[in-house]
């Protein structure tokens, strides 16, 4: 079965988010004064084969651990569901 894993990766609490700060300043300057904070992270979408949703979730989690995320500086969340093309 094919599953879709949606992985959000963003700078850990307390870790300097250089992009977020730059985007925040720019938004404020171009007229979005109501913006209080911006954080910029990565969105990774993985299509994978697995026997069950639980297996797919486990695989996605281990991809994060091994390649996609450096948990020294990044937090992440994984959402897995069946893939509907």
């Amino acid at each position: 079965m094919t599953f879709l894993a949606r992985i959000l990766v963003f700078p850990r609490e307390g870790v300097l988010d250089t992009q977020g700060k730059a985007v925040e300043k720019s938004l404020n300057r171009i007229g979005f004064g109501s913006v209080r904070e911006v954080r910029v992270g990565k969105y990774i979408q993985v299509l994978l084969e697995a026997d069950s949703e639980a297996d797919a979730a486990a695989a996605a989690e281990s991809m994060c651990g091994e390649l996609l995320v450096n948990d020294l500086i990044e937090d992440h969340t994984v959402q897995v569901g069946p893939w509907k093309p």
Partner: protein
Amino acid sequence: MTDLVWHEHTTLPRDTGLVVLPGGFSYGDYLRCGAIAAKSPIIDAVIKHASSGLPVLGICNGFQILTEIGLLPGALLANTSLDFICDFCHVRVEREDTPFTGHYRKGEVLRIPIAHYEGRFYLPEEQLRALEEEGLVVFRYCSPEGVTGEDFTPNGSPNGIAGIINRKGNVLGMMPHPERATESLLGSSDGAPLWASVNSWIRGRLGV
């Protein structure tokens, strides 16, 4: 005379001839390269300058900014290798009838450096075809002998596109750095005629 203009200013110096948006990592290339700079206060003045028919040149990050502003079509995506590339490469001059290339001959091959991570030009296929048909490509990556093709395109740009111009012919964007190729001591002076070209063009136009 050359002036540096602060990004937060809103006007260009009086009697500005050529506006150059140089290379460099404006705002650290955060979000998308050139996107944040495209919202700088000075940009309205640049747009006005361009619409008056005067020349605007965007080099590297400046090219990226011009596409973000919309003065040039398209966008610049990450090199296919996903590496930053700094190297000398060769480009072929495709047009000699622009304010920037008058001192070159069509077909001439220049040795000129590139230094970028996002230099792969992108336009949806049909628009790309139209761009080509209208002859808006000014520089194309090539071999030292002037042969174009994927093998000679360092960043994966379609049709070897290295620089394009707007329809009106006064806004040029290019990834290679002509300002880094003006002295043979530093490896090449093939960029020098570009500066001489715009200079003559402006003198002609302003009658000075």
